């Protein structure tokens, strides 16, 4: 080895360099290869269990049809959003905290020519890609329970991807704001559980009190639920607004996550 030629020529480095983002994502891929079986197993089996319990259990005994859909179709399409939040917000919270605090991974990465903005963006993109795929599993499982395939469903991975970007950023921002890992309990109880329960996954929200209905218009998961149902049963014009809402959610949480992480990682 000698000191000439091995590294790239000196050039002004830019923000959000694809090489830096790709490098950080390649680290995630290398790690994912060691645990993908367990994650994928639960991502496939979880919707099966939910569909059996809610779709068949409730559907056969208490509920027959909701909003003109078989209850299995209703829950199966709604569960896409559940899969997305649980494969984005939670891994982002725990993964970020563990990498920052216990494994000191970010210390190693930031000593290389990677800045916090690139680091956060890469983590979000990776989680978004994963959730984009995992989000489709409930839909595929529902087809085994009788859901008919529709061309609109080809857009579902993209809806999941954008929603997951926002929730990944949410998780990263939370991890960068808490001082102890136990404090995640407040976040899951106060935010994640209500968001996923009152999203229109298991029951329609238009029968809830008016205040709750208005509040759920601010719930990104609710918009994802509606988008996925419309992908299966026919789009409406308001779906464009829902997509716009999800994009605004992703971009604003991205900026929040970057600034929280800069405060946490740079002394």
């Amino acid at each position, binding site marked *: 080895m000698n000191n000439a030629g091995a590294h790239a020529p000196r050039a002004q480095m830019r923000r959000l360099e694809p090489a830096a983002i790709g490098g950080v994502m390649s680290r995630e891929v290398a790690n994912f290869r060691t645990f993908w079986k367990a994650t994928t197993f639960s991502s496939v089996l979880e919707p099966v269990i939910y569909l059996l319990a809610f779709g068949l259990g409730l559907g056969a005994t208490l509920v027959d049809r909701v909003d003109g859909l078989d209850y299995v179709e209703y829950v199966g399409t709604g569960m896409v959003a559940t899969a997305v939040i649980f494969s984005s917000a939670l891994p982002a919270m725990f993964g970020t905290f563990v990498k920052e605090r216990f494994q000191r991974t970010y*210390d190693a990465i930031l*000593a290389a020519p990677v800045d916090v903005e690139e680091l956060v963006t890469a983590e979000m993109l990776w989680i978004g890609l994963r959730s984009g795929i995992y989000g489709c599993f409930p839909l595929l499982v529902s087809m085994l329970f009788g859901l008919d395939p529709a061309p609109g469903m080809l857009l579902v991975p993209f809806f999941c991807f954008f929603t997951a970007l926002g929730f990944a950023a949410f998780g990263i921002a939370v991890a960068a704001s808490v001082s102890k890992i136990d404090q995640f309990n407040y976040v899951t109880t106060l935010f994640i559980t209500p968001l996923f329960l009152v999203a229109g996954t298991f029951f329609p929200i238009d029968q809830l009190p008016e205040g709750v209905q208005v509040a759920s218009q601010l719930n990104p998961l609710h918009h994802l639920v509606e988008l996925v149902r419309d992908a299966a049963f026919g789009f409406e014009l308001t779906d464009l607004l829902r997509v716009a809402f999800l994009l605004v959610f992703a971009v604003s949480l991205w900026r929040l996550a970057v600034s929280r992480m800069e405060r946490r990682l740079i002394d």
Partner: protein
Amino acid sequence: MAAIELHGVVKRFGPITAVDGLDLEVPKGICLGLLGPNGAGKSTTMRLLTGQATADEGDIRVLGFELPGESKEARAEMGVVPQLDNLDVDVSVEDNLAVFARLYRVRDVRGAVDRGLALSRLEGRRRDAVDQLSGGMRRRLLLARGLIHDPRLILLDEPTVGLDPQIRTELWSLIDSLRSRGTTILMSTHYIEEAERLADEVAVMAHGKIISRGKPSELVAQHAGRETAEVYAPPQRLAEVRARAEAHGLRVRPAGPAIAIVGAERATDGAIPPEAIRRAASLEDVFVLLTGEEAE
């Protein structure tokens, strides 16, 4: 142009001033040992150089780049070996290297990984997960990861802390081979022997600034003279010996169960008891004289 230039650098953490008006230049091609007790500000200095901490006052230039603005450019050309192991433990040895080759924008990732494996002598373990390696292997891998892009400057933060003597010696020869290739090295350590063996120059740091700097032999001659006399005895006897030596104008420092009388070659008759063991003055004598007796 020096590889590293710090002028009047101050870094505060709330009420604590970790770095307090630090001036330090590291010329190209030397190994500078940054020696200091725990809490002296060595690790904060290292973090300032990688842009992971931002100075409150002062100027920092690394490889000609102004920090913090051009920190990313500087980081592209320097390698960092951290004090604490932050390898990805579930991931294979070669993937650990490959990820950092990409982060450092190395064009030939595979070639860089092979060189890193050769340097760390882990060719036979390339597909093994890091958590299957011994402590010494992990340290070698950490060093190889920091060198994956063949940097012009290397920051070594306590490179052999917590390692047994065999592994320490092995790492020392690795570091020495880098120095002989002309790579600039800034190495923080609180192991005196490490600084003595590897460093062309030593800077002693205490309370956030450099209090003395020079070649190890010059520092010893300047601060500790030629000879040190050590006396092992019960505490009461040690107190008497110490009082007498100090009455004769000699400097005395505690040395575990003993005391060390520094500058013994200048002692007048009766200043040092006959049972004292005389030895050559060492960097450790300098270190303790300069940074104080009590550990923080």
